């Protein structure tokens, strides 16, 4: 009986230790759910690669980068200290549903499908993989200005990133 008890206590100890280790040690980053939509980080293009593809700032305009994550980079276009627009490039690998809106697209910028979302946002899908978005802020931009901005991104460079991922 004493032997059975010893085995029982030993087993209990092992089980509670492994449960404790699982709960308290920093294993969490290995568990699923850490990344966006559970897509592994290696399958998403890093935001650093997008930065140099943003439009060159023209007279009086200033481009301030605000966010850079895996698969995403965002900047603000400012004119005289006022925010004119949010500019962003994202990898749709983590958001496949974002692709579907381009199916009905009629217009093109440099051959890539263009979609309007509401009164202030224009989106462009490059190489069926990268979404460029321009969202007017404050007083807003008219559609021509937004399309002009979309065309000033380095679209060839962006399309070339597709193979790199």
């Amino acid at each position: 009986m004493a032997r059975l008890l010893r085995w029982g206590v030993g087993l209990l100890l092992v089980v509670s230790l492994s449960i404790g280790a699982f709960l308290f040690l920093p294993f969490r980053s290995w568990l699923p759910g850490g990344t966006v939509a559970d897509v592994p980080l290696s399958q998403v293009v890093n935001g650093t690669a997008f930065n140099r593809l943003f439009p060159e700032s023209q007279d009086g305009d200033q481009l301030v980068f605000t966010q850079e994550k895996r698969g995403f980079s965002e900047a603000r276009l400012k004119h005289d200290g006022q925010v004119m627009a949010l500019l962003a490039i994202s990898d749709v690998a983590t958001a496949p549903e974002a692709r579907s809106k381009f199916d009905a697209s009629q217009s093109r910028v440099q051959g890539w499908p263009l979609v309007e979302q509401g009164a202030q946002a224009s989106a462009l899908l490059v190489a069926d993989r990268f979404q460029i978005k321009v969202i007017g802020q404050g007083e807003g931009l008219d559609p021509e200005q937004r399309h002009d901005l979309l065309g000033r991104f380095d679209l060839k460079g962006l399309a070339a990133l597709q193979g790199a991922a």
Partner: protein
Amino acid sequence: MSSVLERLDRLPRRNLTVLAIKGLSTLVPGGWHNITRADDLIADVLGSSDPELIRQVRSRADVLSRARHEGYGRALSLYDAVNRSQKAAGGLRLLANIGGALPLVKRVADLTPTSETLQAADLSLKVAAEMLAFTQVNGLPGDSFGDFAAALGEYAGEARVRMAALICFDALLPLGDQALQRLDGLLGGVGKQDLHQLPAYAGMARLLPGRGDGAHLTFLRRSLEPWLDWAGGFISQLGLTGQKAVQALEGTLGPWQGSFQQMATFLDAFTDTYQHTGVQAVARRLVERAAAEI
């Protein structure tokens, strides 16, 4: 754990915290708008109130804030840790203030850390939390250090009222108008024991770079340096003083007859300004990303 936008929806529309920030925001040009509805925030960023678009942005934002690697949730837990610490320290000091008059609890008064050194350490923890939260939310934007500094300036500019609250409530009121100039000297006197007296330190220690209290202290001092430069400019630009802060607060909170230190203690114990504006700042950045990704 609730998502960032759920936290935003639960923020109070009108309470002591909101009134305190409202009062202080009269000192800052541009003012402050208390956004506590996620749908309003999304419509503001997107420039459209189409319910279908708002729903898409919202569900994308929830996916992003659930992903631990993206850091939005982590930034909020930083703000929570700092807020808990502020409340605990504020409560203790309040007790000391009241207790000073009663013989029975006088001993508590002797035990409480009222020293300015601790106040300085608390401020440096908050600034470090701000830096860490910035990198959690925004990553390291841009390709060069110049880009990064510009991004930091942009973030601070957007959160002007938030920074003004930090400067007034945690530096000018408790430490006096020469707070920034004195801070370096005060921080020099912070020892490892002092650090452990701050409840927030326990929560933040594993997020601070470096091993051990010594390395953490160095990090706190180093992260304070660029902030001090920026805050100094901010103070002189707006002409902030403890006196002006109290006057602005009296506009919404009612007349105040105690000292500046007591005001700081009162605000520490009863308001959540840092957490309140923190949730709003993180939510805005999250929505800006979600709007770009739908």
